[in-house]
Every structure is written in C-alpha cells, then in structure tokens.
C-alpha cells in the first residue's frame, strides 16, 4: 500500500511544490536575518530563523495540506471506489496516506536542514560538526512536534 501511495505521487506537483515551499521558507529566514539591522548572523542564528519560520509559517499548514490533499484527491479524482473494491478498506487507505505524510514531514525537515547548510556555505558562515548536530536536532524535534500537533486534524477530520 505504501508503494501504491508513493507511485500515485509520480509526476504530481504536490511533492515538488511542498519542497519549494520549505525552500522559500528557509530563504525567507535568511532574508529576515540579513535584512534586520543589528541582527546576529551566523549558522546557528540562521537555523533558529529557519526553525522559527517552520513552526509559525510553514510546517503546520504544509503537513496538514499534504495529508489532507492525499486523502481528498481520492474523492476529487473519483478513485476511491476503485480502491474500495480491490478491496482496500477505508481505514487502511487512510493509514497508508498518514504514513506517507509522516515520510513527507521527515523529507521537509531534511530539506530545511540542507537549506541551512547550503545558505551557510554560500554566505560563508563558520560552523562545525557540533553546530550541525545541534541544528539538525532542533529541526527534527520541532518538525516532529508540528506533525504530532496537526495529526488529529488529518486523522480525525478527514
């Protein structure tokens, strides 16, 4: 079922669009950091900015949208009936889509983390392995926390 759900996303704009949103959010954090007067610049402040944008702007909306879109497309594209008579139970279908949403969340966290590394390299901010470890850990925990926070919306209201 997971394979089927991943295949359904082939050539679909949902995943590239979501990754694009995460990148833009990270870019916004960079602009906020460099644009503000008297701001402390560096790798960790950059990751803090990315983290803050993830929590307040991007992740709650994006994860909810991603998960709910996966389920809703079965109705909008009228494919639910084909799935139900396979048979694939509605609850299993929903579970598979939630699983994909979880994978997608980790992907968004990874993209955020990658953006922080790339921006730091481009702007030549000094950082070390410890800083990378701290940044990754923060992004991971906050990303998972956002996922848990919005999961009831995806699971119970769809």
């Amino acid at each position, binding site marked *: *079922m997971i*394979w*089927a759900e991943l*295949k*359904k996303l*082939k*050539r*679909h704009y949902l995943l590239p669009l979501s990754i694009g949103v995460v990148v833009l959010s990270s870019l916004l954090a960079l602009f906020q950091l460099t644009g503000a007067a008297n701001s402390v610049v560096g790798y960790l402040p950059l990751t803090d900015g990315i983290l803050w944008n993830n929590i307040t702007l991007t992740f709650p909306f994006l994860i909810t949208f991603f998960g709910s879109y996966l389920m809703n*497309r079965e109705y909008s*594209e*009228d*494919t*639910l*009936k*084909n*799935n*139900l*008579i*396979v*048979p*694939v*139970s509605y609850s299993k279908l929903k579970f598979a889509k939630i699983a994909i949403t979880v994978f997608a969340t980790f992907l968004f966290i990874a993209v955020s983390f990658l953006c922080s590394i790339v921006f730091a390299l481009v702007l030549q901010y000094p950082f070390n392995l410890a800083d990378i470890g701290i940044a990754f850990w923060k992004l991971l925990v906050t990303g998972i926390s956002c996922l848990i926070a919005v999961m009831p919306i995806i699971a119970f209201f769809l």
Partner: protein
Amino acid sequence: MNDFVIETKQLTKIYGEQTAVSKVNLHVKKGRIYGLLGRNGAGKTTIMKMVLGLTSITSGEVQLFGKNIRGQEKRIYPRIGAIIETPGFYPNLTGTENLEIFAKLRGTSRPDAVKNALEVVGLPYKDKKLFSKYSLGMKQRLGIANAIMHDPELLILDEPINGLDPIGIAEIRKFLQDLSKERGKTILISSHILSEIDLLADDIGIIHEGNLLEESSMDELRKKNQKYVLFRVSSTATAARILEQKCGGVKYRIEDDNVMRIYDMDIDLSMVNQAFIFCYAVESSSPIDFIVSMQSAFYNGKSRTHGNGGECAELGTASISLYPFSYWDGNCVHGIVGIYLSETGGVMR
C-alpha cells in the same frame, strides 16, 4: 444450490425524502448476461453501488455468491470486476501505471495481466500518454481493462459503452459475449440504450423510478411483447393441424385447448379464417375486424333473419350469422361475424 450470483431482497435506498430504489428483487444467474435497463436517474447505478457495498443500504439484503458482502469483502471482492459511473484514475499517471497500482493492490500474480487487459480493450501498453489526456472512450476502455484485469467471475459494468464509437461498442459487445458464453462469466450490465441490451443481454430487468417493473429472460420478453392475432377455437389441436396444412410455416403458439396466437403478422388472415371455417368451427375474437367473402352463402338466397336482428345464411354445414353491427355490401361481410359449424347436423360452436 443457489444459481444466483447476485440476489437482492427488497433492496431499498432512501436519500432524505427521496426513494432512489424501492424494494428491488434482482436475480442474476450464473454464466448469463443480465441487462439492467432504465432511464437516467432510474436507480441503476444506485443498485450497483449497493450490490458492491459502495453505498449503505436503507433496507433489504444483497447476496453475492450466496453470501452477504459485509464482513466477506476480502473473499468476495477479488471475484468481482466493476465499473461504476465514469472510471476514476489518477490523472498524473499513464494508463499502464494506473493499472499497475491496482494490480499490485489486488495481488494479481500474473505478470502480463496489465498488458493483456490493455490489449483486449485496444489501449497501448507502457505508452507515455497520461490519463488526463485520454479521451472519454479511452477512459472507458481503461475502466473496462481495470475490471477484467484480474479475471473475475463476476463483472458489474455501469454503462460500459458510454463514450465508445460504434466499432468500439461492437468490440466490447463481442468481448462480453465471449466472456459469458465461452468462459462462463456472469455479467451485470446497465444501460439506457435499448438496442444494446437487446443485443447483449440474456436476462433483463427494467427499472423505472427506483422500481423493478419487469424481470425476465430476453426470449420471454420478446414473446410477451410480440404482436399477435388471438383465435378462440373449439379445438386448438385441430386448428394447429389445419394451420400447418393450409398455411405451412406460420409461427403460432397454443395457449390452451381453445386459445391460440398467431405471431406471423404478414399472413393473410382471411385465408386463415376460411381454412378454419371450411374445416372446423371458429369463433373470431372480438377486437379483430376481418372481411369474409360470403358471396356463395348469400347468393343462393338462403339467408334468414337471425334472432338478434342480424341475418343468417347457410353454407354447406356452416351457419353464418351477421350481427346487427356488421353489414353485407352484396359481396363481402364487414364487421364481426359469428360462425357456427355443425358436423353432425346440430349446431356446434
């Protein structure tokens, strides 16, 4: 042993105040094509959805393969292939990719199942055309391919020829007939096109405004709705013999000892009447007007006033009466005639 693959008992579906399907008792026999015929909005799709468990049943029961589908989905669904309304597939994938997803979900073991199914419906295998670019006919074909891919025992097809060109319709019709006749598949097909159901179905259910008006085999339905002339005679066995002797090859059916029907509307009814008159007594049925030549009967001046006010004439051993509402124009009788023939000298009807 239950020969019905699909059986519904008092199946009813009510949406709010509207009754979409009302107490439908459907019987789909194994190995036959059952045509569900009705207008748009008659309830055909709703019945199919209830049969498949895609929509809840307000009251009544559905049995598939002798079992209730609830709780038996994993056993029953793999034996069914279905198209309900317009086929729904993922627009960002090709036809092949769509079918591969459902083949994988079904656990279809045959590696060439997708390829074979696409071949049957005339769609290319592993092409690059996305489903979003498919025409209506191609979408319909893909839906049929999805339904037949896993070689199901039962096919439930909701207007499968919708959007197909005449050649495509003929191809699908032939394919479905082969599936039923040669491979013993059971097919429930719905349509609002009379000619298609007539060509395809073995049994028919006519549905109107949620009610199943008629359910019978196509042969029975054709017989029931054929035009015929009804003859009420003293002996149908003798009348049949006369018919075969005098008018060989006429299609008729004996209802009982005194009633027979002639289905051949091209036949000369006066010839039939004359054949009956000169051999045995017949009593013509009241709705039929016919012209009988009575020249010999009335020229010999043997007419007399009938008790009911009409005129009566002798013709050999036949006594022929004209009722008051019929008339003699000097050559022919027009109207209803009572004809009495006595073999032994007495009057016999």
